[in-house]
């Protein structure tokens, strides 16, 4: 077999500049999982239907199974491993909400679900039911029946809104 000529693929992944040599048609999903060992991004349907491999590319939610190396080179990519609270050790409010509300069971769809929620809340901080459903319609979950997920997203919206308020002024 002939060796495919690689490209020098560069991107900022979870805030860190990464550079590797890969074939231009290598899927972002494989770059993340295999080359960069970021296995939080999950592999499931591989045709962009289930959302288990959802990542943010320049802030937009994308199925990494459909994204080739050349298409996302130079982008800023956020995976589930890149999400955290105010410090790297803290959970992001969305992650906290999923934990508290039972927004997952087996957890395999959860990274993609949380990434889609992040994209949704960045765009619509206080989404209504229909907006949540539209925001997450690209993510399938087989365990929860989506009840816990709906509650988690609603709670996450409240948490995020609360966090973005200015700190209360403490009087004398």
């Amino acid at each position, binding site marked *: 077999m002939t060796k495919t000529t690689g490209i020098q693929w560069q991107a900022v992944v979870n805030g860190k500049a990464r550079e590797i040599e890969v074939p231009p048609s290598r899927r972002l999903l494989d770059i993340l999982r295999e080359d960069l060992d970021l296995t939080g991004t999950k592999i*499931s*349907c591989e045709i962009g239907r289930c959302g288990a491999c959802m990542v943010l590319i320049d802030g937009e939610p994308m199925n990494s199974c459909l994204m080739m190396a050349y298409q996302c080179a130079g982008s800023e990519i956020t995976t589930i491993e890149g999400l*955290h609270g105010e410090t790297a050790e803290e959970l992001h409010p969305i992650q906290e909400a999923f*934990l508290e509300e039972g927004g997952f*069971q*087996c*957890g*395999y769809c959860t990274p993609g679900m*949380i990434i889609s929620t992040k994209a949704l809340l960045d765009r619509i901080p206080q989404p209504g039911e229909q907006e949540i459903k539209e925001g997450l319609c690209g993510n399938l979950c*087989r365990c929860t029946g989506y009840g816990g997920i709906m509650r988690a997203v609603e709670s996450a919206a409240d948490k995020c809104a609360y966090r973005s308020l200015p700190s209360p002024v403490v009087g004398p």
Partner: protein
Amino acid sequence: MLLNRQNSGERWRKRRDGKEKVTGELRYLTDMTAEGMLYGRVLRSSHPHARILSLDTSAAENHEGVVAVITHRDVPGLNRFGIAVPDQPALCEDTVRYIGDAIAAVAAITPEIAAYALSLIRVEYEVMETITDPMRALEDTAPRLHPQGNVLHRTQVKHGDAARALQNCAYVVKEIYSTPRQMHAYMETEGGLFIPEPDGRLTVYAPTQHGYKDRMQIARILDWEEERIRVISSPIGGSFGGKDELNVQPYGSLLALKSGRPVKMHNSRMESVRAGLKRHPMKIEMETGMDEHGRLKAHRVRIVADTGAYATLGAPVLNFATEHCMGPYRWEHMDVEGISVYTNNGVSGEFRGFGGNQAIFAMEGQMDRLAELIGMDPWEFRMLNRRYPDDPGPLQQEIWRTNGLEQVMQALAQSSLWQRRRAMSDPSAYDFLSDASSPPWIKRGIGAALAMHGAGLGYGIDDPAGGRLSLNAAGQIEAAFSYEEFGQGLITTLEIMLMDLFHCTSEDISIVIGDTDRVPHSGSSTASRSTTMAWMGLQRLKNPFLQAILQKAHDMTGIPLEQLTTGEQGIWQVTLEDDTEVSREWVISYREIAAEAQGNEFTFDTKFSYPTTPDEVVGGHFLYTYAAVAAEVEVNTLSGHVRLLDTYHTVAAGPAINPMGFIGQIEGGSVMALGFTLTEDAVMEEGHYMTRNMDTYMIPGIQDMHTSLEVEAIEDLPENDPFGPRGIGEIGSVALAPAITAAIRQATGTWVTQLPVARDQLIRPAGVWQQEGVRP
């Protein structure tokens, strides 16, 4: 109790395995890698039924980057697997019986080379007739798919004289119901990592619902001692019954041993569809009769199950469907025959609900038709005909008495959803159902259904349980079971049980599951049994364990034994006055006690079996869980689209140990049943799948979710009930389909007999809708 976060108090706990799931840190077994790892791929049959004339792997073997190629010639032991009946070849020798049959497998240095190498394997076939219809398989002229013929299993239940009684019934309803080939569609497809260890052992990291059973089967294939194999089997990205049977394990194991290197397998979704198990499609013919007062008299049932190419659990599934096709009702005359038939379709096997879903859909459908025929409210009709707590089980066997049935029936009758249905018995109220703001072609209806669902494997099937409780070296109370976490929340349920028993904190606890080297054989995580078995195991282990560590604390401190108790971080001294605690003082830590342990002083094992009926009724259950479900639907009679608006589930399963897990299981089961009812069918034509991925196999998405789903847990059990909380993994998925189809009937006047519901039968020509619809 209406289950939600507010009502659950401290039992509403963040999952113990939750943080690593929401951060993506958790390594599922298919995420694992190893130094020098190869990638395994399987060559599967090109035809659903063919003879293999020749098989040439030389080109693949000689290809650069290919390290091992295996065929049936490389199987040292039994070249068959199957959890109950081992009749599925690991690698086919001479015949292929379905499109997922494996013929060869390859391990190569990259997945691309492995895939390419498969294309270099030459297989010559002689194509044979494809049997896709079980009825065709039963004809004398049909080719035999297995040496014993095309019948896997038959069941029969008869008492009284149903044929004669039906002739004398005032009313008889006869229908044929059919159900789809539903797919588990777990998000993590099958896979894992297989590592030959330097000490000559093999470590298998692959999801399963029963690590020990896998170990036994892999050992049988390899012709090895079981102890040489270590199976690590959790965490699992979903199973629902679909990973209970071996899938990639034979290939991963054989390739790892042949190559001497770690091998990773991970099925693509399409391969998962092709090779994986499905729910048994069933055709169920029912003829049910009652007298002029609406009392059920006679029930005649014929079940035909398409088990596909191999047995797996086809026989027990048919047993279960047979047991559940008479519902929780009283009968004088009963005549049930079931048959499970081999075909060249995909393999049908274990799936959440285990044949109950199909049977209950049909049974409850009959109940609604009969009630309507006699002009009774469908729930009152069920009330009239329900079994009594003292009645024998469906197979006339002795069962454990509870009031569950009565309680779920009452709860549903009082639910606001069913109250709304009741309000509609006033014909003028019907308009209120069809929302005034909706266009006239949108019709609404409400239906309900009932389920009595057996747990455990049933009479006559070895159903061992057990467990281990110890104080580990780190000073934690450690519980070890061979159960698996596939998402259902078992780990947190165990954590809550241990905290209840020992009043300790989460940090004081260690839970070990999913590793045959570290856990005792305590049976499988199937048949809604793990919660009950773990609870019963811990009840048995609690006292000996407490006695041992409290005695040690007493020996070490001299404090009177009766004043010592376990608590946060260790042993506490509690003094009571008139049964009231007056003081509580710290005594000694678990760690300090553990440091004093002599050998296995603080390790206790127990072994027992899942409770079974004393009556010799094969497959008959002893413990049942009850559920009632109401559903409100909206049907668009221009498009035939059905939308589920509202559901109410009530479940009588004893104490809800882990409310978050309980709700999750019922909600999840409900939405899985929604798919079963409205959209899911793994369509096969001539033995080939037409729906190969999630773009055409439609599981519900968040847009399909109903706006409201209420879960009510009935937590009562008889006083001193020795079995504790019942499992609820399946019960949420068994009764929604008939509730939805009853609601569709009310909305449109159409009786549905075939799932998934075909839209075209609900479409009404524009302008005709005024005359359609049935008013209750």
